[in-house]
């Protein structure tokens, strides 16, 4: 287990990492999710031992690793850029960490071929990186991380420079590839959808602070505060200030009736949050707001409708192809059971009911989820 205990990193006058405490289990996939400059790479460098924290301790299986130089830790890192040795063949690129470790030639050969097989590189082993596509080059870098048999594998936006479809493909394979290693996987990403597809655990980062850490889907469904909810939303979360009086929420000039449980909350000002797919054009739901249509975007089977509701930019994701006239008024509906409410300090006070969990039997098959 890798434990970060109250880790901070200060460079000059800037706090890059602020008081981060995390516990990452062996064999788990951990996503660091946050926008550019939120501290993902800084945190990874601290985990790897490339940087030393200003405060706090980093422990591996209960033992501090702060004094141990990076070469002596069993750490592998894959970067956004495809980093390979340009003059070496793919085979030698993958074998390089094993050569450094002075393994027997037969062992090296076995491990390299196994990794190449997992990453579908077997037919390219004699080529050089420049002859390969971007996807294959990144596979090579990943294979090199794999053969090292590290305890800690750090993937810093490894798919960001790849084509969308290649990304999808490799993203699905990555957890499977590293599963047999039993290593601690850490994966930095700016994209909420990527975190969701990877599953495992997610830590959301905001200005160098970890705002929440837990099972990915739980963080998504039950964000502890508004900052986390915003960080973990793509398309963006619709928000608006509301005030609660008895069994009603007032959003600008609209009134939202509340359930008995919701009505029991104290009367106060809140921030309402609503996922775009819970805001629809069909009139079946209980609450109605009116917005000015700004743009519609078609995705093929669905439509994103961008509107202004109570002066806030909102998005609705609606089934079917809709061409709405711009600057016209449009009625939108949602169900009160799908709303998030955050109090004035930004903390979550109410979340939508969570969907039925995937049965345990199914989760067991996802080996990398422990």
């Amino acid at each position, binding site marked *: 287990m890798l434990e970060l205990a109250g880790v901070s990193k200060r460079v000059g006058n800037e706090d890059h990492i602020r008081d981060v405490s995390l516990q990452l289990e062996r064999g788990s996939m951990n996503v660091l999710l946050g*926008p*550019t*400059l939120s501290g993902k790479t800084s945190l990874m460098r601290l985990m790897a031992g490339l940087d030393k924290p200003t405060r706090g301790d980093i422990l591996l299986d209960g033992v501090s690793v702060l004094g141990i130089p990076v070469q002596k830790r069993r750490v592998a890192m894959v970067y956004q850029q495809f980093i390979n040795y340009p003059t070496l063949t793919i085979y030698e690129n993958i074998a390089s960490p094993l050569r450094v470790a002075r393994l027997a030639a037969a062992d090296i050969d076995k491990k390299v071929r196994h990794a190449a097989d997992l990453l579908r590189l077997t037919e390219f082993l004699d080529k050089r990186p420049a002859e390969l*596509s*971007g996807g294959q080059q990144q596979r090579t870098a990943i294979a090199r991380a794999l053969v090292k048999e590290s305890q800690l594998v750090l993937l810093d936006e490894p798919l960001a420079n790849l*084509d*969308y*479809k*290649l990304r*999808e493909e490799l993203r*699905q394979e990555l957890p499977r590839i590293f599963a047999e290693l039993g290593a601690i996987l850490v994966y930095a990403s*700016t*994209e*909420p*959808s990527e975190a*969701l*597809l990877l*599953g495992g655990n997610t830590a959301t980062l905001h200005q160098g602070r970890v705002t929440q850490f837990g099972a990915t*889907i739980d963080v*998504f*469904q039950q964000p502890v505060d508004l900052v986390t909810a*915003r960080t973990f939303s*793509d*398309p*963006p979360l619709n928000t608006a200030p509301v005030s609660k009086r008895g069994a009603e929420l007032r959003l600008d000039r609209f009134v939202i009736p509340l359930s008995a449980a919701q009505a029991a909350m104290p009367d106060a000002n809140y921030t309402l949050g609503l*996922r775009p*797919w819970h805001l629809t054009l069909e009139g079946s739901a209980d609450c109605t707001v009116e917005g000015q249509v*700004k*743009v519609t*975007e*078609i*995705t*093929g*089977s669905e439509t*994103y409708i*961008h509107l202004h509701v109570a002066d806030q930019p909102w*998005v609705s994701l609606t089934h079917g*192809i809709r061409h709405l006239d*711009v600057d016209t008024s449009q009625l939108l509906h949602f169900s009160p059971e799908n709303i998030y409410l955050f109090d004035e300090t930004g903390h979550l006070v109410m979340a939508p009911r969570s*969907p*039925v969990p*995937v*049965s345990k*039997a*199914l*989760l067991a*098959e*996802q080996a990398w989820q422990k």
Partner: protein
Amino acid sequence: MAKITLNNIAHSYDGGNSYALKAMSHEWNDGGAYALLGPSGCGKTTLLNIISGLLQPSEGQLLFDDVDVSSLPTEQRNIAQVFQFPVLYDTMTVADNLAFPLRNRRGPDKLSAAEIDHRVQQAISMLGLEALAGRKARGLSADDKQKISLGRGLVRTDVNAILFDEPLTVIDPHLKWQLRTQLKQIHRQFGHTMIYVTHDQTEALTFADKVVVMLAGEVVQMGTPQELFDAPQHTFVGKFIGSPGMNVLPCELAGKEAVIDDRRIALAREYPTLNGVIELGIRPEFVRLVNSGQGLPVQIVSVEDVGRHRIVRAQLNKHRLDIIVPAHQPVPSEPGVEFDSDRINIYQNSQLVGWEHQL
């Protein structure tokens, strides 16, 4: 703004041994928003550079409003282009960066200082750059720089076309949404002809009226987002559009049914006898997960909960099958699947079998 006509345009980087772009003829409407979509190396950037004049096509003509511009240099084509990475003049202020392409206009197109100022102000407010206008471009964040690069493309209102070369690649997801919708608003407001190159299907579909899907130097399909989703002309388009993409399963045809490994699937219509490789295409959205005993039995490999819905990765005999299941629907442990007959496409040698084959 102009209509753009490609007349047998083709390009080879090696003197005709191989073609990065195979001969194509298209007509793109004045004021249209087009996306060139495809994987790396499909020729989309080559095509863009031919339109902007950074590259001379080895064959064919390029016409703006029926005027042959094939031999005109870039600066005389009156186009704007936004690149993948921000390209700014570091030593100029943000406002000067925006004004620069306008100040370079000479002869009859020369703009007055007042007019330049007006347009720059317009672009600044359009993109919400007021706070940065007087700052030097050097030292701004990547997001801001790319916003300004977009502004440099949009500041010229009289251009024949605005070209975008994967402009949102380096942008964080939240700003991506904002910039994309701003681009759409600007397009609607000013009616520029816009051509947008990307490998990201979401960007292509949401931005464009017409998406041009390219593969290996050829246009595989050009159509509206809906056409690409409902009736992909090629299995490649089916897989490339949508996440996850279309399931493509080898099958045989028997009257109004498709047969996959002895299992029969009802079709919406009857097909004639077809030769070659026959495949059935169905989008994960149109596969229903049902309780065991019903439909075709499948084994579940993994389930990805993406919040809105779940993506179930399953195995139908030897074939992989992706299924999208609504968030609140339970996933049975020994499920079967049913296909929505109306949404099944049949492919012959990877090409869609169209309605003209109906009996």
